[in-house]
């Protein structure tokens, strides 16, 4: 279908048909009759049939459909973009972030900042890392650009708090070291593609 067709709002064959409705009563007697008929014929209960059925199910048969938030929560998509998480390396438990600054650079709302330094082990240490969640629009660019899969989006969407800072410190976003085993990879943008192993080419080693 090309654009012209889309623009044509008179699409399809104009098969309009008048509904077969009884005429609206005009006389007083006619109106009275209609009120009487609607009241006595219990048409109202026909309309409420489904509602009443579900009510009985919920009240007496234990089939409640309402989620009792905050006691109950719906499962969310693994690709949902909520408060960020910082991942650790599974082998060493060290945080994955190398301080390359790409997330800081790509952030369109300019809400990521990091301080880095040369540490005692001759590595680049991320001495300070913050995300200003007052500005973050959860676009997911940071997770996408991260070369180490270090910053990802988590599922923590409840961000009401006395202080926004409660979410934005590196330590709070980092996987707790005792929960390292439960750390899961983020499947959203920036994640390793399913065929990543096939794409890797080994360095030639002729010696």
């Amino acid at each position, binding site marked *: 279908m090309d654009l012209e067709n889309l623009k044509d709002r008179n699409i399809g064959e104009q098969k309009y048909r008048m509904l077969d409705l009884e005429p609206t009563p005009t006389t007083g007697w006619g109106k009275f009759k209609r009120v009487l008929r609607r009241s006595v014929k219990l048409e109202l209960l026909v309309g409420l049939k489904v509602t009443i059925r579900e009510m009985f199910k919920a009240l007496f048969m234990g089939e409640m459909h309402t989620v009792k938030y905050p006691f109950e929560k719906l499962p969310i998509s693994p690709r949902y973009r909520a408060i960020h998480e910082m991942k650790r390396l599974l082998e060493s438990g060290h945080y994955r972030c190398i301080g390359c600054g790409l997330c800081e650079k790509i952030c369109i709302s300019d809400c990521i900042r990091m301080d880095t330094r040369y540490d005692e082990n001759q590595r*680049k240490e991320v001495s300070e890392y913050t995300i200003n969640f007052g500005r973050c629009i959860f676009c997911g660019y940071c997770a996408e650009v991260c070369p180490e899969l270090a910053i990802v989006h988590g599922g923590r969407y409840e961000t009401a708090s006395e202080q926004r800072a409660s979410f934005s410190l590196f330590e709070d976003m980092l996987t707790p070291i005792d929960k390292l085993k439960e750390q899961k990879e983020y499947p959203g943008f920036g994640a390793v593609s399913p065929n990543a192993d096939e794409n890797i080419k080994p360095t030639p080693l002729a010696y």
Partner: protein
Amino acid sequence: MGVVANKKNKTITITIDGKEITTEYGKTILQVARENDIYIPTMCYLTKVEPIASCRMCVVEVEGVDGMILSCQEKAVDGAVITTNTKDLERERQNIMKLYDVNHPLECGVCDKSGECDLQNKTLEFNVSQQSFTAKDMHRPVQDWGFISYDPALCIMCEKCVRVCNEIVGSEQLQISVGGYKSIIVNTQPESDCVSCGECMAVCPVGALVSTDFKYTSNAWELNKIPSACAFCSAGCELTYETKHESIENPEEKIYRVTNNFEFSSLCGAGRFGFDFENRNAFKDPAKLETAVEVMKRADIIRMSGLTTNEEALLLQKIANQTGARLECSDAYGFSRFLKVYQAASGRRFWGGSLKDVSESDVVISFATRLKDDAPMVKNHVAMAVKRNKARVIYMHPIEDASIQNLVTRFVKYEPGSEEGVAALLLELLTRESEVPDSLKSYIEELDIGNLSGESSVSEEELDAIKGDFWKRKRFTLIVGEDIFNHPRVENIAKIIVAIEKFSSFNVVIVPPSGNSLGVSLICDLSSGNEGYSVGYNCDADFTLSALGDGDLDMPALNQQEGTITTIEKRVVPLHVALGYDGYILNDIAKALGVGSEYTIDLTQELPKEAGFRGVAFDDLEIGFSVAGEDIRGYTLEESESEGSLELEEPEELPSFDGVVVYCVNPPHNPNPFTQKAKLTKMEAKLVGTQQFATAAKLSEGDTVEFEIDGKKFQRVFTIDTSLKGTIALNPTFDMGLSAFTVSSYRFSKINIKKVGSANE
């Protein structure tokens, strides 16, 4: 640049990529291409040094010539038809890139160079996406060289660092250990006092040589670049302050590093590492300003340092005119006396020689300056002359400098204080074969050469030997330095130098002392020895306006203000604001006195035209370099020609310097109290002498001594330096705060030294 200018000046026409170009013979193909905006990729080419030719990236094809030609080395010849881009060349270049990329660590994510890395750029440009060659990787640990750290794993052996260290800086500190894949850059004297200029680091195209302090603190793309100039010495080198917020907690701007246009110009350690001397935490207190205005009104003397911009100097002059105060500047006073006599005697405003003349000459005489410490940039140009033209360098000074031994052909020692006699001897020597007017001839004939050479201890044999050095050489330069400006006979020395410049084949380069002394001398009426209440602008006085932050009223430091400075090249160059400043500025005081203008830089236009300034507005001043590498910052001062009147006087009886003598000199990367404030260049001030000096002054290593120069009390730890020779000790002044700018006497001082503490206590 790199290539010695040809003498023929023949015009040639060549064709590059179908574009017809008319140029002069003597330039390389690459130079011609670059000057005409034609792109030829290079990895190892550095404009300011001779072609290195280690990368072979710059290959081009020339019609009628088999094979590929290295455009960086090959001179363009008339009628040549050159192609810079064919499939073959592309393949060749891509292969070169593939070889460069073998085992290069994939740590761009953390590397400091990422974002401004030549290797990164060219790898992407030539589309090298995988490693197709192999070599056994090996462990190459990071080396710490003080200000600089070297990571051999990242090094691509382009040799730029080695070249600048040898050819530009002349310190021959870096060498290549050749071994194919195992090649590495070697710091030959890691423990020694390398000049710490950071030139090697600046030219490194990859992250192999980086600043130890800057390492891993910021990515290149995060930094704001503010072009400015270094005002610490008269060279006024181009530099760029790179700033960013200090940290997450502190959003205040901070200077992270200083870079420069390393393709065309250089920087010394003071400019590159002494950058954080800003006056932080200044604030406006109207009561303080009022006091300052009050004292300014009744001040008899206004003192300033040489580190004052042209605009501020003009403001101070205007204030002085208004209040009737006398202006004093001990940095520039001697120089201004020199300059006045020089101008009257020569009929010209300025000396004729430039730094380019120094680097292109084949005989250089350095007179009355400890070259490496006083003027690192002039020393660099001497090194270029030595390395490119095998120039002979005659270094005339009372103290031998072991650190530039490799550059100096002949060290001529004279007695401190005998500069006038030595200048007269030089005049006799350099004009031996010249046509001189009769008056000068009779003056030279009447000189008592024997007596002068006896008094100055420059023997006649030495003079003849210097004469021998001139044999078959054509371009001569005489560098005259700081020592003479505070010499009691500076006026006659100036006349002798005018005579040398006029009647010998020597170009003369005068090295103005600290910072903007030339500008201050041109703008202000200076005097000295006045009595009364004094106000100091960055100079110790009864009431001090201080950019160090320790005075009675805060003033902005040179990286916090706009303005211009005047350089050794007679060029007016702009400074720009790198860091914010919240306090009062000199203009506020001037405004209160009714002589200020709306902004300080409004005065750039008003700089005195009779002194050579051109009346260009600050915002019209250019920055940077032209495509061909010429400095186009600001403008050059206007020269004027008129008939001078040269009347030489007899050299006076020389004062003798017996006993304990010290020489006031600061190390090249810490020339003044401002660099002493900077965290990298800060150091402990020590009196450095030889064993001979120690014996004469009855001192031993580690003793604490006290002495007085010019009424200033110095307390120093004494240390013996075995590389030093002679009986004169070196005394730094950088730790004296703003009082360092009040020392105005001759640089050699006879002192009464008092031991106040010994090492064994």
